[in-house]
């Protein structure tokens, strides 16, 4: 056990799974040199060209390598460098990977992990900053995982590789730079299980990805004001662990849902609707959402700052559901 950042934790998960199972391989753009975020560091030196497949800038073909190889028994990890680039690969992800098992009457097993890097990161602008998890949560046949810290990232990635289904594994760029204690040995964090990151009694904050960091910061500030906030990180967005969320709201009677993605039609809307549906009688206030405005991600730092949901936005939402 030692302190590691999420980038190192992801690379460690890939290395340990490749070491354990010769059917696991990694394919993607520039994975040979470790990828632009370092999440593939050291893999090529250890496993060579055969198992660390450096592909052309061809997201559609790259994803097809995953679908075809998985359909005949391998366990591919396909890396789409930046989440916005999934648009190029969308047919293979949505029409092929997600639907193939169902359309074919259950014939193939498709153990594919598609890893990608998402979120706002110092003026990367509108085509390199997307947080697009909601698109994939809307597609039956896919699982969607979005860890917020290094410990969860390693365990969830190992569980994703061992899962027999297509998993979209989203690493948030800010989270990649944060560190936690991470065991050196392989371990699984089960898919579909939320984590209560901080216990509290007065309000539930359900947060995903980088918003977990902000939510914990908000909870700390609220504690100083005498407000006890519970912070829940679903970790897996599909399938969603609604039980943990509902149990928490039944205790706190108030809920705020925070996401980095555009708020309209986002995952937060689904969570808010689920709370209203399943815990309406427990609510003392409407569920409030925090998310990005309905604009593309701007380039100018002054605009990006306004755009990005943050601790202040979460605090403002909490104050709306807890009147002074």
């Amino acid at each position, binding site marked *: 056990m030692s302190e590691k950042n999420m980038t190192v934790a992801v690379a460690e998960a890939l290395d340990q799974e490749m070491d354990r199972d010769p059917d696991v391989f990694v394919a993607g753009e520039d994975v040979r040199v470790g990828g632009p975020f370092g999440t593939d560091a050291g893999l090529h030196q250890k496993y060579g060209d055969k198992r660390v497949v450096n592909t052309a800038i061809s997201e559609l073909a790259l994803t*097809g390598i995953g*679908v075809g*190889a998985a359909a*005949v028994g*391998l366990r591919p990890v396909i890396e789409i460098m930046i989440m916005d680039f999934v648009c190029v690969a969308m047919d293979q992800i949505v029409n092929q990977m997600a639907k193939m098992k169902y*359309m*074919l009457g*259950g014939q193939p097993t498709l153990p594919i992990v598609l890893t990608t890097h998402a979120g706002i990161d110092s003026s990367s602008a509108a085509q390199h900053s997307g947080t697009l998890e909601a698109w994939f949560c809307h597609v039956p046949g896919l699982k969607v995982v979005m860890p917020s810290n290094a410990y969860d990232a390693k365990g969830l990635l190992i569980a994703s590789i061992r899962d*027999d*289904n297509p998993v979209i594994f989203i690493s948030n760029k800010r989270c990649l730079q944060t560190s936690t204690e991470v065991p050196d040995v392989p371990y699984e964090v089960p898919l579909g299980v939320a984590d209560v990151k901080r216990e509290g009694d007065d309000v539930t904050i359900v947060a995903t990805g980088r918003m977990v960091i902000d939510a914990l910061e908000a909870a700390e500030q609220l504690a100083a004001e005498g407000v006890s906030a519970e912070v829940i990180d679903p970790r897996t967005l599909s399938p969603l662990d609604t039980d943990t969320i509902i149990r928490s709201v039944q205790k706190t009677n108030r809920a705020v849902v925070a996401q980095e993605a555009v708020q309209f039609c986002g995952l937060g809307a689904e969570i808010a609707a689920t709370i209203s549906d399943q815990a309406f009688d427990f609510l003392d206030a409407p569920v409030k959402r925090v998310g990005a405005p309905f604009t593309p991600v701007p380039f100018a730092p002054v605009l990006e700052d306004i755009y990005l949901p943050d601790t202040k936005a979460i605090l403002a939402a909490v104050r709306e559901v807890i009147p002074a």
Partner: protein
Amino acid sequence: MELANEQLVHMFEQMTRIREFDERAARLMEQARIHGSVHLYCGEEAVGVGVCEALQPDDYITSTHRGHGHLIAKGGDPKRMFAELFAKSNGYNGGKGGSMHIAALDLGMIGANGIVAAGAPIALGVSFASAYREDGRVTVCFFGDGATNEGAFHEAVNMASVLKAPIVFVCENNLYGEWSPIAGTTSVSDIADRATGYGIPGVIVDGMDIMAVHEAASEAIARARRGEGPTLLECKTYRFYDHVGRDFGMLDRDEEEVASWRARDPILLWRKELAERGVLSAAEADAITGRIGQEMEDAIEFAAGSPDPVPEDLYRDVYTETGAAR
């Protein structure tokens, strides 16, 4: 390569099986006895059979929306195929895919596909797996001329060339992409010319001549199996019917063009050739056609009388419920 007479006759049987299957599938669609739509392979039989007869049983193929012929050529059972068209639970896809998604993984047929050119990246992945495992298998990717205008095709062929993947890209150039003639949509008239851009051989063959297809395919397959990479094999062929069904009512084709291609019906050409070689007499060929026609009638009866999916099947196979223990 000399083929045994037995295989020559088998090739006639397989082409006939496809024709008899699809003629009936068309009528069943017109009678609304089957659901959805069918894309008929009639006219293109020499391509699917000529190529698949050059494959080993454990080799792989990917197919298109026009996929019945490829599945039959790979050994598909007409009973289970008709059962799928009838949306029955014992169809190849359990009644959940239909004509456009028909697949038989146990026969190495990875699937028809409703998205044009989508089979190319998947075929690349299948062939990648063979190279990875060094299992000696070859993948054939079937597609039409229209697919070569999709980005997926270009990405897959480029990557297959770079990886020297054991794959053969077989283009069924039937001169029309859906309802549009190739001249108005495609920058080349010979699809094989596109191979140059990817540094692989491009070969043109008469797609109505099953022996020509078989010989060219055998060479490309052998090359792939030797680890020398992909070939783009263009088979010049023709769709006897409409894009969907026999007559969807939108296709505007010159009658002389249709007649000239119909005069080169690949089954009639092969039947004539077998008679001239003294391999199969007209009477023997008629008997085969009659027997296969009956086989199809029996398959339809089997399919029509098969059980529907049960309501619980709606929720089955969205996910695989295993894996955590692996």
